């Protein structure tokens, strides 16, 4: 069975993708719809949704209202799906799909664990390079141009919002769509450039290789070597997700947003896409700046810290890495929610000024400085 899997990488990829999306991303996205409300409530001195409960006979499961997302999903599914009379029905239907599909596809390049060494799962791996012959990479697609693939696909997502704005035959949503396209185009440049420094340091575009390059010592992680880039990228990427303080395309009190005419599950997909995007952003930040699945001082054969060693079997190492990777993502999602509920919204011209006049020059400076340091370190070769 395992051999079959190792041989047929396409099947492997399919299973991994399904597992990643269905077992991690989607549940987390659904949970973050609950977390957003609950967390904002906690920040705002309220209680937030806490009443959804499951009753099995005499057992009542309330679980702090986590089940709200189920109720939410049911509501979305069963709501009437209204298409405005003069909307372009085809594009109107296509837009939500275009909004969510690129993000989900891009998850393929995110490494969520080190390679699983089949056959040595319960042994302590002293020398992985020579011991492992057949491995299952915990990453859906290991493509050399990794992050270019991400940038290419991420720029597709803008079509979803712009089309939604245009197709719904509503002036407000059109304004929202236009805002979305200008915002996403402006910030894509900064986003790409801000990662350039990291690429220079790691010498690769491939996410898995980047994680390996950072290693298990936190002092060599991207957040330490590229602190400026971290903040620039975080800002630009939050702007990409179109969430507050960059939620201009939505801007409820101003223009109501590009999805003003959407209802039912079509709206639900936009809603979900936003959360998937936050998770993806967290995953990218983890990969580039927080050492990906690396756990501090956890080497393939166990923990090594200041002469103290704890040997662990390979499977345990991989599992710890998986859990820590998930934790990093959850913390980053939490941080994004915190930002979302703290800061006021930008105005379009401020947003453009921030993007083009502040973040872009800063990221260029970052590249030049990084390039200089890298060049000096490598002895000018």
């Amino acid at each position, binding site marked *: 069975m395992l051999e079959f899997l190792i041989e047929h990488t396409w099947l492997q990829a399919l299973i991994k993708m399904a597992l990643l999306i269905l077992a991690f991303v989607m549940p987390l996205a659904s949970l973050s719809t609950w977390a957003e409300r609950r967390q904002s409530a906690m920040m705002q*001195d309220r209680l937030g949704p806490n009443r959804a409960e499951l009753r099995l006979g005499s057992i009542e499961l309330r679980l702090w209202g986590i089940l709200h997302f189920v109720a939410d999903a049911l509501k979305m599914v069963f709501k009437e799906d209204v298409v405005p009379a003069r909307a372009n029905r085809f594009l109107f239907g296509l837009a939500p799909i275009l909004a969510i599909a690129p993000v989900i596809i891009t998850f393929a390049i995110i490494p969520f664990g080190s390679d699983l060494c089949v056959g040595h799962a319960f042994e302590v791996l002293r020398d992985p390079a020579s011991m492992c012959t057949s491995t299952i990479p915990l990453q859906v697609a290991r493509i050399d141009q990794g992050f270019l693939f991400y940038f290419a696909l991420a720029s597709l997502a803008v079509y979803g919002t712009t089309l939604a704005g245009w197709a719904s035959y509503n002036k407000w949503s059109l304004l929202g769509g236009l805002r979305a396209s200008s915002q996403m185009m402006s910030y894509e440049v900064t986003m790409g450039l801000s990662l350039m420094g990291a690429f220079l340091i790691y010498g690769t575009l491939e996410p898995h290789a980047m994680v390996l390059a950072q290693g298990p010592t936190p002092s060599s992680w991207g957040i330490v070597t590229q602190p400026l880039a971290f903040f620039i990228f975080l800002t630009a990427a939050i702007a990409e997700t179109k969430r507050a303080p960059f939620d201009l395309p939505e801007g409820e009190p101003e223009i109501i947003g590009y999805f003003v005419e959407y209802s039912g599950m079509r709206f639900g997909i936009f809603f979900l896409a936003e959360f998937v995007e936050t998770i993806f952003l967290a995953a990218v930040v983890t990969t580039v700046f927080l050492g990906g699945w690396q756990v501090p001082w956890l080497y393939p054969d166990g923990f090594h810290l200041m002469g103290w060693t704890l040997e662990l079997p390979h499977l345990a190492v991989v599992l710890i890495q998986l859990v820590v990777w998930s934790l990093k993502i959850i913390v980053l999602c939490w941080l994004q929610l915190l930002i979302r509920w703290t*800061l006021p919204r930008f105005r379009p011209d401020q947003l453009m000024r921030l993007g083009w006049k502040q973040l872009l020059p800063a990221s260029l400076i970052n590249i030049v400085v990084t390039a200089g340091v890298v060049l000096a370190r490598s002895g000018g070769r």
Partner: protein
Amino acid sequence: MAQAPHAPQEPTEGSKPRRGRVGVRVVGRPDSLEQRLYLPEVLRGLGVTMRHFFANVVGRKYTVTVQYPEEKAPYPERFRGLHRLMHREDGSVRCVACMLCPTACPAHCITIVAEDTGDGKEKRPKIFEIDELRCVVCGLCVEACPCDAIRMDTGRHAPAVVHRGDAILGKVDLLKLGGPSQATQGGKGATWREEQ
């Protein structure tokens, strides 16, 4: 009187009340490099909300929510709620159909039709209806009542109804909410207005 620099003299009893000092102050527009850089102030703001978040998650420190059906915020004594009609010791309605409450009501929500009690002295309401949908809960009817027959101290809201007609409370409904009034002739009035 926390503003020590402003309060040179305390009001002295018996003398003319002191005049306050009224100044004009121009509100500041703080502007600093720190603020221009976005980040320090953003982080400070995040710190404030984070403090609220953790304090609320751990101990519900600042949380003010009242979970309505289970918990109820107490209604203060003076709360004006649903009307009630008081009755005498013998259970008969105190109202003597003097028509003061419909006169005082700015919303014209009270309808009274009077009838004789039969003893040749007093009247009583044959019909006493209050349209709770029209009522603006101002309390002027209670103030107007000369015999402590109508009160609004039930501590209950006007309930939601399915049909508009259900919101019109008749004499029977109002008496059910009522109790014997202590405002017997010659006795002390029972309202808080009396206590001043």
